[in-house]
């Protein structure tokens, strides 16, 4: 009996003990996986780190906020054709028969407003914080306004409408903000960029941060776009003033080698006004940034989405340089694989086309490059001649050449046989598989075979380097400023000579005659705009400006029609497609916004 009492006591104790441990403390667990934000924004450093996050939104995606090399804008320019129609959404977007739910252009909106939200958050916190370093406060404030202003500008011309939140939304009633007009969006952007321009330094200690030149460039570009988009001729003069300021006091100059703008070793050069900085990619989330891979090359990496249009090849090869060679900008923009003919033009005629054997190695300037050979079979009776004779019974074969290369880096080898016809086109065979791999005689942009791809940003020294590389994206460069100045000055009724002079700078750098246009006619008011357009094409394929240029000039439909895009041109409604549809999610979740009227 005694024993039982004892056990009872123990049990009672145990019970009590465990119950009493039911203290609230035991239920307090801190999250060990992340930094909680309670004490953030309490030091100068915190604000620096917060501002650093504004850079990330501006790049990376397919439809990035900036005017990047792979953006949704490029796909709709007449320079680019869609390579793979499998991507249904892309195909619809490309052919202008997308509906609002298509979503291809949504990223510009979400990225811009993400930046705006962050900028608003930091600005609000700055109101309640006194910096130990007051210069830093001014510097950061200017950078924040730069990003916010550029974002509002982007919304203004891409969507034509959008909310203008200037405070971070914190409660449910603040989530819905009504859309405002493009005028108001431009006005807010001007206000922000003006603050940025006033306070940003001409040079930043940390290369990559926006400078006064960058803010001025965006401001000028904004006026130029506003002039075109809103039919507001008074803006041209404002644009010319900004650009002129950069030209006269900015300290920028064109690089001697055009290619320096697209290789990693010459990033942030004298021509660079603002660049998205890409750095070593080291695993997910640890990375800084890398170039997106939409504009890739077969056999290298990435989904192949873009290919050059046939028109771009014609346009870019229309003028020979002072050494009677093709424009270097053509040769560095397009890529010719394996020595194949491009749009029926023989590779040999292209001059210094870059060769990259399938497989990722490629031309190597250090001397370990491909080992190549050739053999002439012209006049001999062979499998290839018989195939070609069957295909084109009325043609005469002028040449049969075997070209082979061994690439020691990629350990790959090919042997191609090129059969050239008297009509000036060639058919290329795989020597081993006896199969046709390129038929220049039936080339068309819509199908068949052609062998051109986009090589811009594939660096010089690593012609076949993966597309996802660390080469910076040039957002705005001096050549763009010059051509925009030429245009704004001309449109504002300025002195024509000034416009011609800056166009000359761009032409001279490409080893072209000056004071003439691409057709050799002397430059004057009648052809200056055509030449500006031509030079913009020469310079900026895949740099995200062409589509917007055509819209602001009001020539989108006409150009697409003329340049081999009859399907897209037919569906294109210039009124409707002037602006992208507002993302469906925004219309759905924001009670105060309606879809763009024609969408």
């Amino acid at each position, binding site marked *: 009996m005694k024993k*039982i009492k004892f056990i009872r006591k123990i049990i009672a104790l145990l019970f009590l003990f465990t119950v009493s441990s039911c203290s609230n403390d035991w239920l307090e667990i801190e999250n060990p996986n992340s930094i909680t934000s309670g004490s953030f924004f309490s030091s100068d450093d915190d604000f620096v780190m917060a501002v650093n996050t504004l850079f990330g939104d501006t790049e990376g995606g397919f439809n990035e906020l900036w005017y990047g090399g792979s953006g949704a804008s490029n796909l709709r320019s007449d320079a680019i054709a869609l390579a793979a129609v499998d991507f249904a959404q892309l195909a619809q977007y490309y052919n202008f028969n997308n509906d609002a739910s298509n979503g291809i252009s949504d990223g510009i909106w979400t990225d811009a407003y993400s930046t705006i939200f962050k900028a608003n958050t930091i600005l609000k916190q700055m109101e309640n914080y006194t910096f130990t370093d007051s210069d830093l406060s001014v510097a950061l404030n200017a950078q924040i306004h730069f990003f916010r202003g550029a974002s509002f500008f982007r919304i203004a011309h891409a969507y034509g409408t959008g909310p203008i939140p200037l405070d971070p939304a914190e409660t449910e009633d603040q989530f819905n903000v009504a859309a405002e007009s493009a005028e108001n969006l431009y006005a807010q952007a001007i206000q922000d960029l003006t603050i940025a321009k006033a306070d940003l330094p001409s040079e930043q200690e940390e290369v990559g941060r926006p400078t006064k030149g960058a803010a001025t460039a965006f401001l000028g570009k904004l006026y130029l776009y506003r002039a075109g988009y809103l039919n507001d001729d008074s803006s041209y003069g404002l644009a010319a003033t900004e650009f002129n300021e950069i030209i006269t006091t900015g300290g920028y100059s064109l690089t001697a080698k055009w290619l320096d703008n697209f290789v990693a070793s010459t990033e942030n050069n004298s021509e660079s006004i603002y660049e998205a900085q890409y*750095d070593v990619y080291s695993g997910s989330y640890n990375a800084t940034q890398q170039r997106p891979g939409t504009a890739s090359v077969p056999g290298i990496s990435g989904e192949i989405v873009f290919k050059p249009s046939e028109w771009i090849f014609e346009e870019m090869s229309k003028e020979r340089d002072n050494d009677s060679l093709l424009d270097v900008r053509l040769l560095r923009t397009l890529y010719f694989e394996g020595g194949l003919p491009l749009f029926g033009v023989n590779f040999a005629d292209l001059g210094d086309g870059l060769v990259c054997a399938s497989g990722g190695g490629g031309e190597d300037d250090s001397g370990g490059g491909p080992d190549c050979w050739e053999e002439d079979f012209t006049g001999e009776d062979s499998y290839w001649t018989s195939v070609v004779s069957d295909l084109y019974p009325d043609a005469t074969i002028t040449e049969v050449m075997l070209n082979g290369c061994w690439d020691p880096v990629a350990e790959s080898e090919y042997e191609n046989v090129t059969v050239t016809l008297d009509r000036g086109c060639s058919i290329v065979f795989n020597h081993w598989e006896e199969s046709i791999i390129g038929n220049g005689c039936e080339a068309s942009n819509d199908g068949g075979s052609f062998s051109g791809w986009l090589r811009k940003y594939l660096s010089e020294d690593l012609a076949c380097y993966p597309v996802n590389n660390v080469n910076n994206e040039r957002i705005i460069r001096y050549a763009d400023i010059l051509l925009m100045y030429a245009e704004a000055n001309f449109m504002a009724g300025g002195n024509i000579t000034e416009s011609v002079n800056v166009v000359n700078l761009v032409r001279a750098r490409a080893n072209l005659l000056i004071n003439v246009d691409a057709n050799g006619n002397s430059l004057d008011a009648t052809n200056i705009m055509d030449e500006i357009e031509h030079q913009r094409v020469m310079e900026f394929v895949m740099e995200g400006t062409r589509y917007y240029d055509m819209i602001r000039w009001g020539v989108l439909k006409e150009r697409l029609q003329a340049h081999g895009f009859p399907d897209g041109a037919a569906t294109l409604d210039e009124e409707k497609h002037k602006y992208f549809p507002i993302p469906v999610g*925004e219309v759905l979740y924001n009670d105060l916004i309606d879809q763009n009227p024609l969408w």
Partner: protein
Amino acid sequence: MKKKILLLNASLLFILGSVLAQRAVTGQVTSSDDGTGIPGVNVVLKGTSSGTITDVDGNFRLEVPEAGGTLVYTFIGLNSQESVIGSRSIVDISMSADLAELEEIVVTGYGVQDRADVTSAVASVDISNMSKRSTADVTQALQGTVTGVKIKYTDANPGSAFNITIRGVSSPSGTSGSPPLVVVDGVMISGLQNVSFENIVGNGDGTRATTGLENINPNDIESMEILKDASAAAIYGSRAANGVILITTKKGKKGAPQVSFNAELGVQTPYKGPETANTAQYMQILQSMYGQDLGGEANDFLMPQAALDYLENPGQFDSYDWYNLVYSEAFTQTYDVAVSGGGDFGNYRISAGYKDQDGVALGTGYERINLRANSNFNVSKKLKFGQSIAISNSEVLPEPYAFSRSVMFKAIAQVPHFSPYGVNPDPANDPSALPRTRSFYWGGGDNPEALIRNPLDYANFWSRSDQQSTVTANLYGEYQIISGLKFRLSGSYNRTEGFFKERTRTLSQPEEYFNAERYLNETEIEDSNWNIDNILSYNKAIGKHNFNALLGYVAQQFTTRSLSGTKELFLSDITSTFDGPGADPTLTELNGSLEEYRMTSIISSLFYSFDNKYTINFTFRRDGSSRFDESVRYGNFPGISGGWTLSNEGFWKNSGISNIVNRLKFRASYGILGRQVTSTYRPQATLSYIPYSLGGGVVNGLMTPGPINPFISWEESKTTNFGVDFGLYQDKLSASVDVFQRQTAQLISAIVIPSSAGGGEIQTNDGEINNSGVELEFSFNQDIGPVNLNIGLNATYIWTRLTSIPEDLIYGDGAPEWDVPHVSQTFQGRSPGEFWLIETDGIFKSQAEIDSHVSSDGTVIQPNAQPGDVRFVDANDDGQITSEPVGGDRVFSGLGIAPWNAGLNINATYNNFDLTLSFYGNFGSKVYNGPKYLLEQPFGYDNFSPTLLGAYDAATNPGSNFPRNNPNDLGENYNSRPDSDRYIENGNFVKASLIQFGYRLPMSFSEKLGMSSPRVYVSGQNLFTISGYEGIDPEQGRDGLISAGIDRGTAPQFRTILLGFSVNF
């Protein structure tokens, strides 16, 4: 020490027993009712542990000492009997039903109840029937056995997770569904929640959430109860809101040690795949789209060189059936052995199981080993101790990684003349005979298309395995303080360790698309939880009054640790650990996290019954969780239930009606449960880390998130249940009907913040889901001559409404998952997972028909259509066909989740033969035929459905009602648009889950072999499906909000033919 000796004694007795001088007695136990033999009666020599069990005819044979002794006969539901052997060698006896004990015992939370006393919705699983299904995962064997419980597979690969939904979807949280809590012998177990399984349709987000049931050996299960309403489950509190599955594992029974052994061998055969074009048909279809030379003017596609080569020389090419290359017959085997016994000291049971299942899909498989030891010790009359420990180790070999596309889609989309191995026709070029990397000849140079990858190559290139080892242990002590008053202290620990490993080898061709070469990823996840229960219970019967009270305190902790690393570009294929030389340091990654939360709870219940007529039961629970902010941390969750057994009233018994309705009981219950579905830690704003490179180096970026709601708290689910149980003609026919309503409110749901306000989401305790339904259960027992027949039928109807969810909860236009878009949507006020699609109305046969297809204002709706194009219905009458989620032309086109579920189980025995038939079915839903959508796309050069051969063609086939093969289909007239109703089909089906035929060897024969009750059987599982669905299997899709009813081409179901043998010694 004493316990050990007891154990030893038990085994000694066994050995000694066989040595001492003995003689045999035989006998038959018959029913006093009808004189037939009663199988399964326990016959024990009194005062010893030696005993046996009667065979199917009621016969037994037992070794007894020369002196004889007394035999004790026991059987649940019958009055125990004793009989003195004396000098007899044949001891027959008849047993009568113990009416008081007829009712089965039901395991409920922290205790047991007589079935007659149960007043809430508790279902007992018919274990004998369920255990006949040989499945790797017990969950699957539950299909069709219990009303209100729905089981769906995610894909048929062995080791893949199952979705269990009890009484309908009650959570809006995406696709994770509403898995119930599983409690095994008092231990709350959990499966791994975080294994990242890129290619498995698990959770939509690449993870698969499991319940833990998959690690339990089905042969260890003694009983299984499913607590369905809040009043029953309340005692398990916040983790029980989706119902509770209670499993009691087998314990040793009083008597000599018994050994049971069970073995099964079987062959699995995949279901027939979707019909795809053979080489000749494929080329014919291509030519119908792109012209005879495949170079048609409107050809946006670069033809694969292989297709052009085929035109050149068709004789060189074979036709390959890719489905059969990927899915083929597979072998499976299962072995189980158990030793058990018991005596006055207590009881024990030790078991081991092994299961090996090759998958029908290339490279898949599953293997599991289980060990379990259960023992209970009666230290004194007042003090008991017991333990159970179970360990398991399993390995899943998943499908080869297929870039977020179904392996099956890859197989069926593959070009039929593309040789899976080597270059056709010149194998000398590729002597290694390894699978080809790409679909097509690289020769084209300008055709990088590699989306249809060769699944055979990926099976070779990737190796992946997912291992799990679990330990589940429970130790308890129970002390009877005074008669009826017990204190039980129980500690449980459950740990699952997951080890996931994947690696790739060297790419066979350097220009291949994918560049994660010689890559290794190892992930370890350790998921553990423990709980300590202090339970004080009191039972008291005073006359006709019965009391039962319980008070307890429970503390629990849950921990998940993960550590994961990857390296890439090792020097060699041969190494397979991180120590392998050469990996590229810039591609090295290491991640890890710790997720931890705690709960404390006070539980209580009070039960009272009077005269077996009136019953009432109260429960109350108070939970605190570390997942919530202090101010909203605790929740109170009460429950009440009551019952009235009308048939125990005197007037009923005395009236003639009791001869017909011998049993009639009414039940009602109401209860509230809490649920916590937030992230592991209480809501706090955390900074996001966004580095950037500036000034030539990396700079840190940190930023506050968007707005958060720190006061997220418990979700509450309120269940009301009404039930009637009745038995007719002495329970020959018995039935239960339950009507329920569950209202889950304060759902944690996200309000989407418009992008313009910064984007993202903010959580609220808002929203409500209502499930209501009817559950029916019938069972019929009858002897027809020598045949004993038992038929069980269950049916469930569940109606779910998302009464109040944030209006934003619309899915449907996200990126396609596994090539098939989210064609189902979930709207406020409607059911989850509904199909919203554009209606089609045949095809246009002439320009006149196109011109006359106008909206009410006269706009031609499809101005660009041509004869042969689909006529879409302009539901919103705006003159165009648009597919916006709201306001477009999509209309309700059927339910993705079947509202009706039913199961039918038939058992028949005749002498030594037995036959089991089990069926289950779903009714009232639709299925979206994803493979059909993909195969009927009239463009590209993936393989096609032969249906396209019969497509409309104005010249050659104007009578056809199948849309024309327009290679520019994506353009102006999108006939094959995924969001039309062309691919929606009737989802009703009945599946034959089990057909088993068994034979128990006659005793005369088995005795000679020293065995008791040996049985051989052959069974067929999933032998056939009756349905109108044209795809492989209408049982498709997760029952969540977005993917319900969508056939995404998951690994196909298979038939299993098994040969089994079981025996006891």
